């Protein structure tokens, strides 16, 4: 971060120097009545608050996870100088772990600079515990008095060894941006970002028939550089650019002591490879050309390479099974190519045409080698080769719309997608999609749009991949590779019965039928209805309400006899959402009031039917009530006292973690991680002050 600030200050000074201070041609017109700002403007909010209860989920991404006092600090400052000089400083949530700051500005039309810093805390579980004495280490160790067991129940020292561990990460991103406008037609932009993510994650590490949920380290660093040069002529423009992304993992491997009794001699330690350092470099060129008024051609070409050659770990940590690696590291290399050509034209006032050809290739150049691996650091495996998976796909997209009489507009489109893959069950799939849309405009009071879409995906044979061992059931059709018919209907309605009242409705129904899938996903349906209403009353009073319902259902089949289907399962995910907002400005002349309420409920049902025996999992359920309000007392023109209040009530039932302690599963030593419900109140009192040093 320090380096970024130094670079930012250097660039600021250099670009502000005389050599770069030439004033661009000013407008010929003077303007006495134009109130161009000059000098400083400041808006700030400073105060404190109190969080009633600690709740990890409530504090996820916000930094409000601990009970106790908080500091409120927001600031927005601007400087307006002569000749287009403008600087802005913004700071948000400065008293919290989710703070962000930005400085940007420059001389408009000449150069711009931007420095930003953002922090983002992400906490995953309300509670988790592990016997490892050094969570988040790359080499996890058990206590000295640990007693291994064949099952978790036999680990006699487990309870006394468990220690809480916080599963979550903190992300910090520093951005540095520069744009230079040497001439009115040329612009150069550079955007550099440095991001770190540190903390503790989870990783399931197994030894053949036992596993441990490990508190793995997360120590990631990502740098990206996005730079380009744009030239704009009257009828065309072109941009050439470079995008680079370097990912560095300071914890590329995870070693852990096996808390279970070794399943085979020597299986006392395991080691997994975490995400390798990798890089992605891409050159891009894009352009637009307008040969005539309302016709535009757009083209884009992006050539990239993603690669990594991280040193490989040994096949196993088990000294009894050690063998030589075929290579110390593998040049894993994927070339990417994307080419896009679009045309949009309005040959007649009422007719618009669009066409696109989109090509996307992932060319995997990684050598395919034989690997005589070890399963779970315990069992020698048959030699297998890595498959350099890649694809090549293209889409042709044609659309037209025509404005008919009586406020009706008709749209129609056809899209054809072709996907060719290597080392998968389906070498080539083709999907054709046809859609039509009618939009009715009834004056300025109503808009209604209806859309129907039908798509048909065909595959060129389904052949299980020979390299997949043990083999898949030949009747399985992976859902993204399977024949599919899709039909969908969308409705959008916008009404404005009165100038003060707006109403919107959006409904969508989608049906997917995998008509040639004896096993795997066989059908899926999605439906949703959402509505919004807003009312504007005299005095600036505004009321709005929004709500909706959404459901996704799917059905799948399986075969535990490895033959014909002998079980099926259905999923049904539902969510309901409702909310209302009221704003009341200048209430009793000196109060601004805003109050918002949100309710969200999600539910999930899973049913199975195995050999005719029906079963149903308990319902997955979350429920949220949130009230958020603030009252601003306008003490003076430049000073406001704000009272804020947030109340959140959250409940969760999730059978995958409820009642699952570290030792609940005999052969999986878990973290006992869980989400918990909570009731949290946050109250705050702050001063909002605005100041103008304008000349």
């Amino acid at each position, binding site marked *: 971060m320090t380096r970024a600030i130094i670079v930012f200050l250097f660039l600021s000074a250099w670009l502000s120097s005389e050599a770069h201070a030439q004033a661009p041609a000013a407008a010929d017109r003077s303007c006495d009545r134009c109130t161009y700002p000059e000098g400083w403007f400041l808006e700030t909010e400073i105060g404190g608050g109190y969080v009633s209860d600690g709740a990890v989920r409530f504090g996820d991404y916000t930094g409000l996870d601990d009970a106790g006092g908080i500091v409120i600090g927001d600031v927005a400052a601007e400087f307006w100088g002569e000749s287009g000089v403008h600087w802005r400083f913004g700071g948000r949530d400065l008293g919290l772990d989710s703070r962000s700051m930005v400085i940007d500005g420059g001389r408009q*039309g000449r150069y711009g600079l931007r420095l930003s810093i953002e922090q983002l805390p992400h906490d995953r579980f309300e509670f988790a515990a592990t016997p490892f004495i050094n969570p988040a280490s790359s080499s996890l160790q058990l206590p000295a008095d640990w007693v291994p067991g064949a099952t978790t129940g036999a680990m006699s020292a487990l309870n006394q060894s468990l220690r809480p561990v916080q599963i979550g990460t903190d992300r910090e991103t520093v951005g540095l941006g520069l744009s230079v406008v040497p001439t009115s037609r040329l612009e150069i932009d550079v955007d550099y970002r440095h991001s770190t993510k540190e903390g503790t994650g989870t990783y399931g590490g197994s030894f053949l028939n036992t596993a441990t949920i490990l508190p793995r380290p997360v120590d990631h660093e990502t740098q990206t550089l996005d730079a380009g040069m744009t030239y704009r002529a009257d009828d065309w423009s072109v941009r050439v650019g470079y995008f680079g992304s370097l990912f560095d993992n300071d914890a590329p491997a995870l070693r852990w002591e096996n808390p279970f009794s070794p399943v085979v001699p020597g299986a006392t330690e395991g080691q997994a*490879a975490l995400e390798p350092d990798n890089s992605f470099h891409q050159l891009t060129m894009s352009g637009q050309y307008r040969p005539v008024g309302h016709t535009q051609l757009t083209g884009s070409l992006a050539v990239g390479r993603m*690669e990594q050659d991280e040193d490989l770990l040994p096949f196993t940590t088990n000294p009894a099974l050690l063998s030589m690696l075929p290579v110390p590291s593998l040049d894993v290399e994927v070339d990417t190519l994307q080419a896009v050509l679009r045309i949009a034209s309005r040959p007649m006032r009422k007719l618009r045409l669009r066409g696109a050809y989109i090509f*996307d290739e992932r060319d995997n150049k990684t050598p395919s080698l034989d690997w005589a691996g070890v399963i779970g650091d315990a069992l020698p495996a048959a030699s297998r080769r890595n498959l350099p998976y890649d694809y090549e796909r293209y889409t042709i997209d044609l659309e037209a719309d025509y404005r008919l009489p009586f406020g009706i507009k008709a749209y129609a489109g056809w899209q054809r997608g072709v996907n060719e893959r290597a080392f998968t069950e389906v070498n080539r799939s083709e999907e054709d999609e046809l859609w039509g849309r009618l939009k009715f405009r009834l004056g300025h009071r109503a808009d209604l749009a209806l859309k129907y879409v039908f798509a048909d995906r065909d595959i060129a044979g389904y052949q299980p991949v020979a390299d997949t061992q043990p083999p898949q059931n030949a009747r399985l059709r992976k859902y*993204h590779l399977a024949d599919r018919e899709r039909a969908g209907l969308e409705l959008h309605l916008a009404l404005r019965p009165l100038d003060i009242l707006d109403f919107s409705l959006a409904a969508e129904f989608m049906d997917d039928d995998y008509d040639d899938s004896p096993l795997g996903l066989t059908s899926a349906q999605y439906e949703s209805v959402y509505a919004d209403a807003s009312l504007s009353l005299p005095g600036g009073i505004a009321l709005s309400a929004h709500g909706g319902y*959404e459901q996704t259902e799917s059905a799948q089949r399986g075969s535990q006899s490895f033959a014909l289907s002998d079980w099926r399962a259905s999923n049904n995910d539902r969510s309901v959402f409702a909310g209302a907002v009221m704003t009341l400005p200048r209430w009793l002349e000196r109060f601004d009031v805003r109050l918002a309420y949100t309710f969200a409920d999600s539910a999930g049902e899973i049913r199975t039917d195995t050999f005719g025996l029906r079963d*149903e999992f308990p319902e997955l359920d979350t429920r949220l009530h949130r009230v958020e309000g603030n009252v601003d007392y306008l003490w003076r023109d430049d000073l406001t006292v704000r009272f804020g209040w947030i109340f959140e009530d959250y409940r969760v039932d999730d059978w995958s973690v409820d009642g*699952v302690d570290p030792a609940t599963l005999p052969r*999986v030593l878990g973290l006992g991680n869980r989400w918990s419900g909570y009731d949290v109140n946050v109250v705050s009192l702050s001063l909002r002050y605005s100041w103008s040093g304008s000349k």
Partner: protein
Amino acid sequence: MIARMHRCAVALALALSCSGIVGAATEGAPELPVFSPEGANTCLACHNTPAVTGIFRSVHSAAADARSPFGQYQCESCHGPQGQHLPLHGDAIISFGPNAKTPVGIQNDMCLDCHAATKGDWLSSSHEAGDLGCADCHVLHAGRDSMLTVTEQPDRCYACHLQQRGQMFKPYVHPVRQGKMNCSACHDPHGSVAEFELTSNNLNETCYSCHAEKRGPFVFEHPPAAEDCSLCHEVHGSNHPAMLTKRPPLLCQQCHSQSGHPSVSYTSGGLPGGSPSPFVLAGSCMNCHGSVHGSNHPSGITLMR
């Protein structure tokens, strides 16, 4: 600048024709309105409310920038020449916003006159096809355009994208409702070369811009992960942890049918109180297959290392 002046005048003439204000009176080519000799001084004599003068706290009022409206014809750069636009009974000017009389195509042409090369691929975008006007989303006569903020932009998008507002309140989501991420982090509303108007060249490249660790490439890949993140993740919000589209093991069993544990029908009998099953509880399949996005371990073909 001369070219822009002519475009302004023609646009205004077209706007007036379209709105029926001068249509019948103009036989043949419309007469081009003339610019005010006093520029913004003339406009501000009447239009001097904060709702108008807020533009002076915005980039559009930078007179020193020859590309800015106030570096050119001031108010008339966007609203067209004054012509006979006079108090109470004069001609209309080009106006902006969802309730403006100026046809949306002409509104947008005024903006595109400067922004065509910098604002994505507007003419090919779904927003253009939906007859959306720039001023339907952007607030120009203000120091701060809410579309350009992280915290307020989503609300503007939700005005039309009603589903996404509700989806962002599902239990597992990106931090949009917390004000730490906005829609334009992934989507370019002005059109882009990619599907769903994503900011990068395809879906996975967009995801990798924040999740570079998932990019690999790995020695042993999990093909769906390398092809399309949305095959397993619901990016606008999900009822399931990690924004998965479905709860494991059923999610994984849509593609894995090998004899043995991948093909077994797991039931509620595997919950606590029954015979707790590692294929159902905690991380389910990920209890053992921890490297689900791909493995760089020489023994990682089953994504267990």
